[in-house]
């Protein structure tokens, strides 16, 4: 029994589908290359199944098809070049854009040209990439570095370093770094103090807001505890906060105003500082709003570890959820330990290393079969109650159903190997003898596929 026709039929199907959906692809704005890609993948996967000899496979034996294989692979090279060009562009452009950063001399393009000119001989699509390179190189990818280095080159070195550092900070942290940038531009001497002082203030504020937030949340759940904590903390923390904010803003403003008068070296630097000042004011406003409305949005600047209050709060929450009575520390520990142990046993007993499908199968089979014997891999004995419930549910159904289900599982495991998909014209039965007439079918047996127009089958039950 040969299946030489299968290849042609499948080829026809593939071509038919590809032609049929071409309009849909165009309507959806999908490129033609994707359609060819789909066809290639489809053919490749079919070939991997090795269910038949396909026309697009390379065949040394038969002389007729080799004309066809040339046709399907042809679209492949057409679709391939665009990605190649994209790769070369993307890999080359970073190089050219990186070089002006380190050495902004004009002589460089000559040194660039040498390696670039060698490449067109290797790859066809290179000319496109080359023409784009000078353009990409001339575009300042990092305008900050580019602009800063050129005007500052002839001037003194420390100013370069300062502007670069400022820009680096700005690029990295955006507005968040505005304060430190301002203090840096003031002068090197002030940098350390300003930074440390502000950082400390911010930390304190964050901590206070954390504490306040906790108190608010506790306030809703535990009126008793809130009385303990909030009363002493209210006068201490909330009120001092406002002077600190004001202090901070005052400290920042003189720092900004200073450099404009003290160091008017370059126009560029002035512009930068003006920008910084604007940002500073914006930041201060935003910070005020945040403090007033939503303290949650502040970043986590806490570096001294979680406060003890936090843990106390968690304990109290647990208590409120579970019972009205407070749980002791030991009780909570025991509770946690029991939960962790239960999970660990689930992982061990449930087959941690098994695929999910198998693991669930084993469990369901256990539920069905082992009524008397108990689970083989179950060692904790804690889930016996669960099992009994499951068994009771199953016991309502008849045992016949269970066995059938098991059989079907086996069938479905195997039907990848042996399956016939078709239409039926007639199915007749006389006593235990069946006759059926089938048509338009695809049959998969023993790793090979067959197609048929008509099939008649006779079998006994």
């Amino acid at each position: 029994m040969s299946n030489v026709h299968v290849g042609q039929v499948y080829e026809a199907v593939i071509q038919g589908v590809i032609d049929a959906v071409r309009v849909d692809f165009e309507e959806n704005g999908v490129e033609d290359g994707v359609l060819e890609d789909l066809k290639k993948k489809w053919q490749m996967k079919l070939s991997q199944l090795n269910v038949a000899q396909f026309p697009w496979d390379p065949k040394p034996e038969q002389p007729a098809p080799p004309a066809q294989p040339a046709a399907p692979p042809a679209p492949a090279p057409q679709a391939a070049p665009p990605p190649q060009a994209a790769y070369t562009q993307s890999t080359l452009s970073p190089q050219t854009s990186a070089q002006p950063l380190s050495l902004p001399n004009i002589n460089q393009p000559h040194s660039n040209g040498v390696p670039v000119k060698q490449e067109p001989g290797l790859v066809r699509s290179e000319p496109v990439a080359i023409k784009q390179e000078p353009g990409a190189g001339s575009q300042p990818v990092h305008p900050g570095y580019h602009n800063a280095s050129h005007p500052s080159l002839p001037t003194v070195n420390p100013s370069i370093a300062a502007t670069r550092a400022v820009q680096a900070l700005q690029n990295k942290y955006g507005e968040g770094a505005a304060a430190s940038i301002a203090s840096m531009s003031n002068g090197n001497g002030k940098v350390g103090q300003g930074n440390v002082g502000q950082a400390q203030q911010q930390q304190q504020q964050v901590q206070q807001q954390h504490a306040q937030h906790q108190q608010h949340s506790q306030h809703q759940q535990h009126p008793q505890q809130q009385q303990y904590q909030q009363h002493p903390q209210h006068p201490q923390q909330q009120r001092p906060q406002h002077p600190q904010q004001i202090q901070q803003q005052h400290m920042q403003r003189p720092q900004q105003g200073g450099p404009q008068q003290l160091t008017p070296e370059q126009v560029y630097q002035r512009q930068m500082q003006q920008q910084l000042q604007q940002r500073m004011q914006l930041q201060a406003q935003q910070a005020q709003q945040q403090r007033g409305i939503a303290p949650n949005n502040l970043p986590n600047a806490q570096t001294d570890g979680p406060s003890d209050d936090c843990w106390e709060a968690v304990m109290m929450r647990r208590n409120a959820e579970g019972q009205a009575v407070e749980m002791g520390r030991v009780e909570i520990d025991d509770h946690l330990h029991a939960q962790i142990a239960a999970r660990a046993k689930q992982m061990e007993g449930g087959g941690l290393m098994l695929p999910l499908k198998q693991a669930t199968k084993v469990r369901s089979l256990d539920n069905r079969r082992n009524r008397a014997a108990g689970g083989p891999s179950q060692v904790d004995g804690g889930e016996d109650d669960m099992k009994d419930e499951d068994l009771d549910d199953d016991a309502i159904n008849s045992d016949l159903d269970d066995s059938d289900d098991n059989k079907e599982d086996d069938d479905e495991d195997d039907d990848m190997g042996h399956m016939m998909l078709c239409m039926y014209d007639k199915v007749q039965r006389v006593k235990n003898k069946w006759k059926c007439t089938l048509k338009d079918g695809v049959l998969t047996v023993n790793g090979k596929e067959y197609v048929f127009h008509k099939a008649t089958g006779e079998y006994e039950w």
Partner: protein
Amino acid sequence: MAANTGFYDLYRHGSLGLTLTDALDELIGDESIAPQLAMKVLTQFDRVVAETLQEKVKQRLTFKGSLDTYRFCDEVWTFLIRNVTFKMDGNQGSVVADKVKIVSCSAKRNDDK
């Protein structure tokens, strides 16, 4: 069972359909195509397979075996046959399988539409 075009999606479970589904899945994973477009491809596949099998295939097949399980539900026959022997007309030799599952939809219903 039948798609809105009037063709069964039965053949999607064969090797042709499974490989097509795989390829479409990959393209969806690459975000090359939208899932809706993939569904359109599959509906076209249902039609093209049915038509191609009708028009291009002429082979006849006979098979014998012992029926293990039969089921008729929603106009779909499902047989599980053991110890099957397949024979194609015109071709010598036969293929033997210890177990074959047959899933078969009504040909009439397809013609009616």
